């Protein structure tokens, strides 16, 4: 369905991509200078988007488990993953876009404003890479655009009069972009309203989802590595390494994690990577305990001693003999860890220690919304609701997974 709605956009991204390849062949240096994060981002998600349709068709049989037990939390999680992967397709606006503050500031949800589009003054002879850049800017939106004016109302009579709160401004009719001889006056619709800088809350929410989930995945994978490697060493070796690692884990468990995270972020500075690393380091303790106890019990089993006698290396033992056995409890634990990390990231950005102001994040949206709480409830309500629903569906699917893997708990 989204293919149909966003067909223009997908086609736009694709032509842009092919244009870019053309440019790359002819003028490599200029092409390398143009590339930025949002361009790669857009191209990658379009490619993934086009790939996923044949994938779904091909592996139709494997997806049947989705049909059986599709309840609210699973559906919500799938929607979240979708948003995470295809952010540039779902919303083609820049989350930082703000213009004409007097009109767009703190609009309530479901409000509309008029939008006038001006003609862009394209200069004549420009180089090929310049031309490409202009075309790119048309499709991938920047955080500022001179040619868009938001107004409360517009009057077309010889000249164009437009009203912005108490201001009245006039421009000539020729400046406005025309379509079929008629001047373009569109309506801009803000589904969830705008924030104090006139930025679209819906777009920011979607981009914030992506950041939260990316950090969650990154940190979970990091703690998975730490937990499995340390747990395997402690369980397999026993003796002194076991004692040392146990004490180490106890220390980490006794640590007030949020204070530790705050200290590290304060000393080392906060960026997306430092947040991922810090949250990953602070969450591996439960995985360590699970892996260690499982390894201890597997060590007694016959198949494991056979594998040892055959002469497998330690990494092979871990990958081929232990991982398949412990995958169920580890998976359940990872799901809960994921929800903890998403919560911790939101809490950090609420406290002003998150990934900074260059990306929208749920936590920082809530903390800036708190200042406008008596005028604009939607600034807190929507990111808060998104956070609650995310955590709830992750937690309840974790509980469900636990029941599937461990039927004894099902009382």
């Amino acid at each position, binding site marked *: 369905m989204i293919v149909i709605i966003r067909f223009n956009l997908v086609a736009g991204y694709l032509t842009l991509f092919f244009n870019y390849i053309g440019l790359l062949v002819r003028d490599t240096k200029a092409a390398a200078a143009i590339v930025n994060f949002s361009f790669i981002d857009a191209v990658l998600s379009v490619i993934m988007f086009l790939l996923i349709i044949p994938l779904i068709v091909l592996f139709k049989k494997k997806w049947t488990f989705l049909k059986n037990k599709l309840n609210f939390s699973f559906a919500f999680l799938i929607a979240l993953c979708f948003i995470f992967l295809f952010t540039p397709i779902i919303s083609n606006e820049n989350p930082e876009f703000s213009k004409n503050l007097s009109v767009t500031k703190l609009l309530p949800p479901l409000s509309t404003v008029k939008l006038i589009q001006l003609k862009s003054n394209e200069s004549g002879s420009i180089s090929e890479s310049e031309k490409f850049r202009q075309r790119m800017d048309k499709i991938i939106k920047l955080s500022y655009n001179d040619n868009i004016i938001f107004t409360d109302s517009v009057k077309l009579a010889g000249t164009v009069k437009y009203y912005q709160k108490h201001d009245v401004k006039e421009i000539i009719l020729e400046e406005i972009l025309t379509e079929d001889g008629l001047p373009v006056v569109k309506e801009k619709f803000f589904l969830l309203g705008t924030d104090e800088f006139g930025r679209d809350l819906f777009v920011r929410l979607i981009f914030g989802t992506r950041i939260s989930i990316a950090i969650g995945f990154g940190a979970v994978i990091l703690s998975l590595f730490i937990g499995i490697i340390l747990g395997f060493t402690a369980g397999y070796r026993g003796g002194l390494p076991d004692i040392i690692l146990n004490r180490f884990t106890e220390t980490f468990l006794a640590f007030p994690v949020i204070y530790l995270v*705050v200290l590290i972020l*304060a*000393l080392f500075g906060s960026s997306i990577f430092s947040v991922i690393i810090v949250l990953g380091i602070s969450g591996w303790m439960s995985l360590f305990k699970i892996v260690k106890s499982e390894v201890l019990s597997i060590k007694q089993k016959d198949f494991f001693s056979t594998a040892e006698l055959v002469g497998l290396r330690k990494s092979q033992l871990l990958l081929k003999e232990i991982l398949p056995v412990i995958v169920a409890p580890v998976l359940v634990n990872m799901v809960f860890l994921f929800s903890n990390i998403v919560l911790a990231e939101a809490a950090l950005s609420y406290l002003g220690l998150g990934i900074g102001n260059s990306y929208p994040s749920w936590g920082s949206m*809530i903390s800036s919304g708190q200042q406008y709480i008596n005028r604009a409830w939607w600034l807190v309500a929507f990111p808060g609701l998104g*956070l609650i629903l995310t955590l709830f569906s992750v937690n309840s699917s974790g509980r469900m997974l636990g029941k599937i893997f461990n039927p004894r708990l099902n009382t």
Partner: protein
Amino acid sequence: MNSRILKILLKRLSSSLLTLFLLVSILFIIIRLSPGDPTDKYVSAKLGNELSEKIAEKFSLNQPVVDQYFSFLLNVIKGDLGISYNYRLPVFKVVWEYFSFTLVFASISFVLQITLSIAISLWIIKKQNKKLEKLISNSSLFVYSIPSFVLGVALIYLFSVSLNLFPISGLKSLDYENLSFFSKILNRLYHLVLPLVTLSAAGIAMFYKYIKESMDEVLHQAFIINLQASGVSEKVILRKHVMPNALRPLISVAGVELGLLMSGALITEVIFSLPGMGRLAIESVLSRDYPLIIACVFTAGAVIILANFFADIIKLKVDKRLIKGILN
């Protein structure tokens, strides 16, 4: 028997001290690893190298790292972690002032969490209504999923902005000094209602799940069925046989939960701008007051280690079987 208990106490104490020692060591490693020259935090680099060299010498920064480590340990033992940049006071003095509030605040919330969750699970068991049980179980998961800052801001919007029932922030009213002693306490409690709800909600949901599960487990055991068959009243069974058995595992959980409580208190103090240690830590982070941050982290860690130590002792007191387990 007495010497055995003393032995256990010593064992526990030494392991707690070892953990504390590891905590201090990790703190030292983190501080040393942090980027930037330590002298930059005292004098600007523009003032020339001579001054910063002087400072490095005075703080014995040019000595080997191992020597620095030992002097750091010695200072921690002496209770000297430096002087706060903002307050111009020894950091522990500042931390103590704020910590006392956090201690009271967190303790009230802790008591609230335990009593309310026990009360709810007892009520559910007495009702024996499957639908209600499922509803409460699902809604407890939902409440557990609400981040404290979302709940706090929502409560502020509902009760302070819309209904104007409770104050938005702060700890006392403007006319606080003129009140009598009794109404002073009432005034403080009145200001603490929303923060306490914010801090306790997730904890109540979590404890409810633990207590309910362990009560269910105990209820299905043979001796309870035996008691029921002998005609002992349900009330007596619940109070005398189910409760003590079900609450035993709670003690060790409670020790771990204290860590969560500390971080929850940090966020709640920021939301309602209460004068606690959490807000002090965040403020000192934002104003780059390094000695104060380190003191806050150290205090919080020490409190949790201490709480776990006491939880272990209480557990031993309650469950005599554990004593044998540790000694062997």
